[in-house]
């Protein structure tokens, strides 16, 4: 299945989907050394975002979150790509300075995708490819 999207940060990458309906504050919600979500109140608490295609509504919190995304990338524990419903500046800037493909303006029901589904994000051409049709449950 292919979905059209809007490029925020250029690049092309794929990986297993990791999906949450909670916004993410990279400063505070994520351990920058391990890529594990450390906020007990977050839906993804205990999960590791490394190598995933991280699908979430958007960012929130401190602008230092942009540097945390860069730190995740430098440590090799960043998501392979990210998809937002609507990107805000913290995640957008973090993705760009880190060279992580980021797209937004996708249908809301992408947040119902099953974790682990292989997703490929091609920000340059504004396309998301989902390996099997598995939206909804």
């Amino acid at each position: 299945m292919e979905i059209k999207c809007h490029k925020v940060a250029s690049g092309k990458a794929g990986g297993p989907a990791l999906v949450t309906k909670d916004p993410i504050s990279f400063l505070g919600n994520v351990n920058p050394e391990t890529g594990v979500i450390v906020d007990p109140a977050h839906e993804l608490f205990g999960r590791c975002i490394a190598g995933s295609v991280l699908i979430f509504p958007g960012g929130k919190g401190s602008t230092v979150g942009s540097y945390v995304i860069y730190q995740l990338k430098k440590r090799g524990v960043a998501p392979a790509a990210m998809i937002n419903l609507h990107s805000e500046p913290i995640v957008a800037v973090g993705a760009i300075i880190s060279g992580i493909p980021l797209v937004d303006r996708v249908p809301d029901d992408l947040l119902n995708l099953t974790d682990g589904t292989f997703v490929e994000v091609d920000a340059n051409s504004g396309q998301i490819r989902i390996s099997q049709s598995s939206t909804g449950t």
Partner: protein
Amino acid sequence: MYLSREEEAVARGERGETLRRMMEILVALGDIYGAEKLVPVRSVQIAGVSFKNIGDAGLEWISDLDGQVVVPSILNPAGMDLCRWREMGISEDFAARQQATIEAYRRLGVTIDCTCTPYQLYDSLASRGDHLAWSESSAVSYANSVIGARSNREGGPSALAAALVGKTPLYGYHLDGNRKPTHQVSVDANLSGSDYGALGFIVGRIVKDGVPLFRLRSHPSNDELKTLGAAMAASGSVALYYVDGVTPAPPVSPAAWEIAEKISLEKSDIDEVYEKYPGKDADIVALGCPHCSREELEKIAGLLAGQKVQKELWVCTARKIADSCPDLVARIEESGARVFCDTCMVVSPASERYRKMMVNSGKALSYIPGLCGVRAGLGSLEECINAALGRN
């Protein structure tokens, strides 16, 4: 977003990888906020300087950049006095990384003035109507409201992108339509000094990211406007306000304003802030949030004259201001107080070893507990000095 031929070339990477990514940042932000195009900026003020805030990740990013700023660009406060950090109790390890951060900015052509009050140092950075890309929330508020320039609240990377490209996306507070008052605040009380910080502390919480228009009985000085704007930018995220008859007026006529709420405050509301956050039992007193002007240093020197402090007293200012009045600095330090430059109590890890800090700033009152893990109390400048002298 429309890009000129030259901007397109930068975006394609024809001017190098650093500029390509910087342009990508500006275009992404422009897309998010619906900007039509980029606009040249007169100056840039860059956040993301204190190593406490940016950490190794930020330092690595800045160090990896390759380019030169093309407009006058200065820095936000660092995590320590760049010369007297040992006196602040800063570790060798932190100091080395902080110095490396400063060097990374210097290499990019940024002027090494670390201050939240660039407008107190150079008149040339901002005039009425200028487009700016400033980061520090209180400086943005001052530039928009008191100077009548135009700036959004930039993050560290977007400010640096603006400095290297010389432009910023045209949206938000750059446009007249977003500079209309949204709240009207009437204050039926005579205010002075830290009262403006208390007022800002209250109003920021109510209006959040709105644009308040104040009708005040008293006429605030520039230092008092600085205090008011800083507090609203910290307790809320106010980037623009008006004071009727004092600051430049809104660019659109009153008929076009969209006032969502009218707020009336009295002296008792201001007093409540002092009562709720008493300065009693503080083990440190810290002044200079935002950085002290020369006039404020004069007041502090006058209040301390001939006396010795019994508690730690920090006075934070910009190095250029301290260097311009060494006599004043010496008079303040004769009391045992210390005038620290390049840094402040909010962004320095040196604050973390205290239990409770007394301040005369609504901004510091908002940030110290969360960012430093230290309780905070509010007092007037006179009460703060008295506390430092052991008189309370």
